[in-house]
């Protein structure tokens, strides 16, 4: 199974993503330059972290118009798994593939830390094998990771079980002290209504090896592989019907 890791000018976690994906059995990652126009050869798409286009104007605002994004958007609508970490999450929001936006951290500080996140749904294409309530230790490194949505969209996100990860303390409690950036309701990662596009501020790519203090990030990549091989993405629309 081949994953595409999109390289924008200014991406800086592309190598982390490729290395962590290549470290897993049955998975292979390849770089795809943002000027490319097709992703037909790939089973899944990863938008890595970094500072695409220098974060000029807003994070992800210019990257969303890169030529490759047309393919990312059409493949996402066709049901392909798309993962956006950190800057990748910001690009997915700017592109309209995920609701909400990521704004300046409430503290005004760049946070670089290991955080605990709690899995909020029983089964998602990206957290397969991590039951609801499971804790994942993942690093964060961002200045603009405060997730914001309007109250109505927030209600929808919760009702449709689109919140996949929340920042939690080590006991798994959702408390403000565990929130590194002021995100609304401690939201760390969300998926789209169909469930095949997932964005999160933490870096699974920087936590896919026990030598890096945590290998929890590998669970997300492995889950994507399981989802694809089991052909489970096709059932995503049914999931929407159930909760609607």
């Amino acid at each position, binding site marked *: 199974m081949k994953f595409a890791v999109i390289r924008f000018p200014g991406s800086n976690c592309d190598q982390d993503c490729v290395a962590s994906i290549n470290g897993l059995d049955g998975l292979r990652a390849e770089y795809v330059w943002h000027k490319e126009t097709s992703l037909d050869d790939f089973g899944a798409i990863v938008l890595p972290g970094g500072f695409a286009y220098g974060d000029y104007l807003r994070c992800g*605002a210019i990257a969303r118009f890169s030529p490759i994004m047309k393919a990312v958007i059409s493949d996402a609508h066709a049901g392909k798994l798309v993962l956006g970490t950190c800057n990748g999450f910001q690009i997915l929001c700017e592109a309209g593939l995920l609701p909400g936006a990521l704004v300046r951290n409430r503290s005004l500080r760049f946070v670089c830390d290991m955080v605990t996140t709690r899995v909020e749904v029983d089964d998602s294409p990206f957290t397969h094998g991590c039951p609801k309530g499971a804790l994942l230790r993942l690093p964060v490194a961002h200045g603009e990771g405060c997730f914001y949505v309007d109250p109505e969209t927030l209600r929808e996100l919760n009702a449709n079980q689109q919140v996949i990860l929340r920042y939690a303390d080590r006991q798994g409690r959702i408390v403000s002290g565990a929130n590194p950036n002021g995100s609304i309701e401690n939201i760390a990662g969300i998926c789209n209504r169909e469930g095949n596009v997932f964005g999160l501020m933490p870096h699974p790519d920087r936590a896919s090896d026990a030598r890096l203090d945590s290998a929890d990030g590998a669970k997300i990549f492995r889950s994507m592989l399981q989802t694809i091989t089991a052909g489970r993405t096709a059932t995503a629309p049914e999931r929407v019907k159930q909760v609607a």
Partner: protein
Amino acid sequence: MKARVIVMPKAAVLDPQGNAVRDAMQHLGMPEVRSVRIGKYMEIDIEGQNGDLESRLHHLCRDLLSNPVIEDYELQKAEGRNQKKTPNVERPTRRRKASAGQALNVRLQRPKTTKRK
């Protein structure tokens, strides 16, 4: 044609930068300051003024220059090239370094006693 675009965070979106500046202004002797919101201001120079230019500009304001999820924008057209510039900030003379108070055009009132709780 020249256009100015002002992008501001929506009222519901927290603006920690604005809050930090508000606090600084209050510390610098303006306790009257209630709130500060920080946005972006863009000056755009455009060739010609075709009929649909403005609607295309609005389109890009929504798509690129602002994010409608968190921001509102205002588009101002400024036609004619010889628009008089009217700076709204009086620059202090350069003889000595301007204090923060001068830049803000306020006189700083330092408390006589420095005792604090």
